[in-house]
């Protein structure tokens, strides 16, 4: 039987090897296309914009004349809005994560909160803009202000912070908590003095990623009503404002080439900020992992 059947295999090794090699090359090419596009994007923007990146670009207000236009207003707006949004998302997000991981009973309500958070993370950012417009700008009557913008962005990145903080807290071994309880510490004392210090680098990584998301967000703030042409820096939480991505968007939409250069220069600033934040997050994550494996 065995001998008879053997002859019926037509293995075609040459063809299969060839297919395998072609497939390998295709896979490699795919990934190179992705990386190549990234390179093309970075190089293209650098070539378009690097001449405009200088001190006066950072310290000038936008202008009708592309040569004189700068990002001062947008830069200050971004810093105010994102710093406030980050602080809000950090405090609420970490608190929520602590509740969900350390306090919440494992019941249907906790499950609903979890599913809800997962789904909120998938809601298009522009929908948060509509929410911000209706709730913060109109209902709470904050106007199209720095405060309303920060609240909107804080809600947008809150799920990211919660999910990251939950993971970081979960990674703290239960034995640490048991050790705390065994010494008579209350739950909060255990969390505050033992769990959070351990989880902190992981939480921080999540917060940095969330903030870097907030830095780049454009659509929700446009919908919420942030201005596109702002010749002033915000002078308080209720001041009107613009942010860097909106300024870039505004310049991209202009037909004049000079504004496109300004947009590219703005993008360079934006990317430098984002890349340094990402690098920081990666660095923290690596240190954190080493300590856990340690």
């Amino acid at each position, binding site marked *: 039987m065995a001998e008879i059947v053997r002859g019926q295999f037509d*293995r075609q090794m040459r063809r*299969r090897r060839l*297919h*395998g090699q072609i*497939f390998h090359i*295709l*896979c490699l090419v*795919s990934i190179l296309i*992705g*990386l190549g*596009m*990234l390179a093309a*994007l970075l190089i*293209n*923007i650098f070539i378009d914009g690097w001449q405009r990146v200088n001190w006066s670009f950072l310290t000038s207000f936008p202008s009708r004349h592309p040569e004189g236009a700068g990002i001062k207003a947008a830069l200050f707006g971004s810093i105010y809005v994102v710093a406030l949004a980050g602080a809000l998302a950090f405090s*609420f997000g970490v*608190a*929520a994560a602590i*509740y*969900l991981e350390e*306090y*919440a009973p494992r019941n249907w309500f906790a499950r609903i*909160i979890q*599913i809800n*958070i*997962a*789904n*909120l993370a*998938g*809601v*298009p950012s522009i*929908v*948060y803009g*509509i*929410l911000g417009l*209706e*709730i913060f700008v109109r209902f709470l009557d904050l106007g199209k202000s720095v405060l309303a913008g920060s609240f909107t962005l804080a*809600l947008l990145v*809150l799920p990211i912070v919660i999910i990251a903080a939950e993971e970081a807290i979960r990674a703290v071994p239960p034995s640490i908590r048991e050790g705390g309880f065994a010494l008579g510490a*209350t*739950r*909060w004392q255990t969390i505050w003095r033992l769990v959070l210090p351990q989880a902190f680098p992981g939480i921080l990584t999540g917060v940095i*990623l969330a903030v*870097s*998301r907030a830095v*780049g*967000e*454009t*659509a929700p703030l*446009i*919908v919420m009503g942030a201005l596109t042409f702002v010749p002033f820096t915000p002078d308080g939480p209720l001041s009107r404002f613009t942010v860097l*991505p909106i300024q*870039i*968007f505004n310049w*991209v*939409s202009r037909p004049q080439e000079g504004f*496109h250069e300004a947009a590219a220069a703005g993008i360079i600033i*934006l*990317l430098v900020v984002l890349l340094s934040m990402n690098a920081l997050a*990666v660095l923290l994550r690596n240190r954190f992992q080493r300590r856990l494996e340690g």
Partner: protein
Amino acid sequence: MVRHQSALESSFSDAYAAANAASRWKRYLPERIIKVVLFLCAIVSIFTTIGIVSVLIFEAALFFQEVSIFEFLTSTKWTPLFASKHFGILPLLTGTLLTSIGAMFVALPLGLMSAIYLSEYAPETARQIVKPVLEILAGIPTVVYGYFALLFVTPILRAISDDISVFNGLSASIVMGIMILPMVSSLSEDAMRSVPRSLREGAYALGSTKLEVSTRVVIPAALSGIVAAFILATSRAIGETMIVTIAAGQNPNFTFNPFVPIETMTAYIVQVSLGDTPTGTLEFKTIFAVGLSLFVITLAMNLLSQFIVRRFREVYE
């Protein structure tokens, strides 16, 4: 000596007892307050959802008092800002579908193949370099991709064919595909890497080539995760705003022609927000009807993706 020690002990325990009595309230009241505060923070997310849903439904309901749902869903003209008003979402829907499907045509093969390369072929060192670089790609703001689409990809496309307008769905699709590629590849790769090594070995032991192991064992075993990744990425593309706003145009054309200007649902919301349409008018309320449609579509896809992961996940020991 012995007496001395016990005296010392009792003075310690007295001190503890006194501290305990005095601080019972101090210790446990804050505990309860903290728990309540943390709970309130946790339900902010619930209120966010309630806020989104109620705002969209409430405002959209006002819109639908003046425009019939039938017209909204069937009319092929979307001209709320013109003198002769039509409120058919189909042009915005086709615009959204055109760009998202186009993006998936780019992201699906490239993302899946990249994932296969990273999971099955790449040496560990290459993987450790490429993955963070792809994460950078995922972290670039969409307005930057918009710039890239309009001022880099579109000119190239127009050099290839004269039929392509300055604003077109094709360029936006390609760049959006690049934007969601890292998401497709990283989620698919996670799914593939969770396929146990023993399955790969089983297939190799039967005389399979790497291609056959990848396509006949690893991908089928990881299929639920891969499909979920595609759906999630498509949902992301549907909700994406800045690339399509900048590069695809603001002309609600009922067409699947990728060469002409179109408008997506998200781009329309931005267009109204940037304009001078007074809030409270019917024209302005359109953004809630469009926003609600967008929310429902993306939510449905996200839920579907989660369902697939839960329902079809193969459980290995």
